């Protein structure tokens, strides 16, 4: 940019100030709206409408697109926690997750505690799917692991069971990560607990030894480093009540199908 003045400067400055001022007024109004209780409830009502519409338009078991090996991302970006970094987790990495346990409890008839070896021995589903981050990027990878439905059927859900809450070993800014899905997604055929990725053991950066795949929703729902699945009748008493780490902290949609 040149410092030299030219005759257009003043006019363009005024114009810019005017446009900026108008935009500023609109945007300041928007900021005030989202701070108000009514404004926030209107903004947040879109999630329920979108979820209702999407659920009405899709079959309960409608599948996410599956891709071929040739269509896979050459390099799959890791996001969120890339290594939980706790001494406890480091010890699990050191002994190949031999002592890792996955618990299933809460509103179930038969609480379970499974080793990684037991999980790996279960019938598994392999799927090449697209992972969509809330920020906008996508990566395609191959995931392999037992269907969550298999585990939930083995545990037997009580009649008031409504949600599956996933407890994770990673602390995000000092707080354990967690996520939750409802039973429609929990029993979806593509919802799996992946212990392998792209034909290898699940890497630490992607959630070793197990991560959730819930293919019809965005990346932050796909909990990594899963240690426990708690079946609950309501999300209200969990965390701050919004159903997930990011939902509680910054207001991401709990229904991340969009």
């Amino acid at each position: 940019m040149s410092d030299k003045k030219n005759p257009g400067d003043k006019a363009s400055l005024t114009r810019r100030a005017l446009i900026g001022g108008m935009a500023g007024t609109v945007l300041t109004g928007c900021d005030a709206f989202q701070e108000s209780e009514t404004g926030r409830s209107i903004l947040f009502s879109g999630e329920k409408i979108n979820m209702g519409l999407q659920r009405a338009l899709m079959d309960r078991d409608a599948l996410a697109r599956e891709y071929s090996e040739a269509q896979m991302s050459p390099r799959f970006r890791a996001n969120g926690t890339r290594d939980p970094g706790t001494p406890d987790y480091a010890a699990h990495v050191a002994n190949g997750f031999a002592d890792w346990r996955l618990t299933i409890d809460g509103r179930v008839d038969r609480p379970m505690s499974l080793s990684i070896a037991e999980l790996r021995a279960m019938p598994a589903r392999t799927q090449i799917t697209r992972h969509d981050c809330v920020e906008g990027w996508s990566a395609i990878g191959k995931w392999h692991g037992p269907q969550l439905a298999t585990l939930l059927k083995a545990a037997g859900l009580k009649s008031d069971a409504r949600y599956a809450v996933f407890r994770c070993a990673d602390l995000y800014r000092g707080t354990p990560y967690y996520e939750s899905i409802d039973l429609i997604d929990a029993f979806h055929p593509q919802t799996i607990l992946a212990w392998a990725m792209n034909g290898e053991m699940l890497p630490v950066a992607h959630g070793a030894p197990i991560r959730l795949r819930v293919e019809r929703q965005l990346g932050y729902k796909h909990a990594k480093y899963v240690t426990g699945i708690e079946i609950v009748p309501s999300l209200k008493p969990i965390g701050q009540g919004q159903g997930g780490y990011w939902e509680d902290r910054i207001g991401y949609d709990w229904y991340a199908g969009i």
Partner: protein
Amino acid sequence: MHGARAHKESILAEDESYGGARPSARAGEMIRRHRLPTRIWHWVNVLAIVIMIGSGLMISNAHAHLYWGIYGANYDPSWLDPPRFPGWMTIPTDYNLALARRWHLTFALLFAFNLALFMLLSLMNGHVIRDLRIRAREVSPRHLWADVRAHLKLRFHDADNPAAYNILQKLSYVGVIFIVLPLLVFTGLTMSPGMNAAFPFLLDVFGGRQSARSIHFICCWLVVAFIVVHLLLVVLAGPINEIRSMITGKWRVPAEKRGEGA
């Protein structure tokens, strides 16, 4: 035609008193220009589109790389890295992807259903057929060139039929209403993993989620370009008369500009 007969407004019925159906209107006369559904659609759109653009620019800031194809992330080649849009352009003004998405995805419902309703009503009330239909003779190079020259001389109306849209107007309105805005809706839906499961063909139509995201971004700027030209022409054509016509529906036929015959 209608004479002094009291006129009852109907949203649905074909209404001959509107738009290009009054070739006899003379300069200075007040005529009915915009139907009620058009006016409501227009102003709801002003609100919805300003919010969609502001929140959309914030969402772009979250990952300012655009790709073609079915996947695309940091290690993949992007075809465009949009600039970081400053706070005075974005909703909210401070970086907040969660709230930008709340704004965008809530007002997307208003925007999309408003558009669908306007399209349906405009088909039913004859607006599309009578005012927006492009006739073959209008798109002849000679006619197009004549209209470009007329625009450059700031002559926007056919003196013989002042309420009718000229061909450049028709092409831009039809292009925005029936191509760019629906493309924004459908590329938006294609970015939704839930909608991908519900309507997998969307992925095939647009060549993948990342292509859809790129097309969405391009269409956004086409809308911005349309708005700039639209506002400029409203100012040149007489802002008070034009804005009033979009509020009350009534439009004063401008005095004929002297010069070459139309």
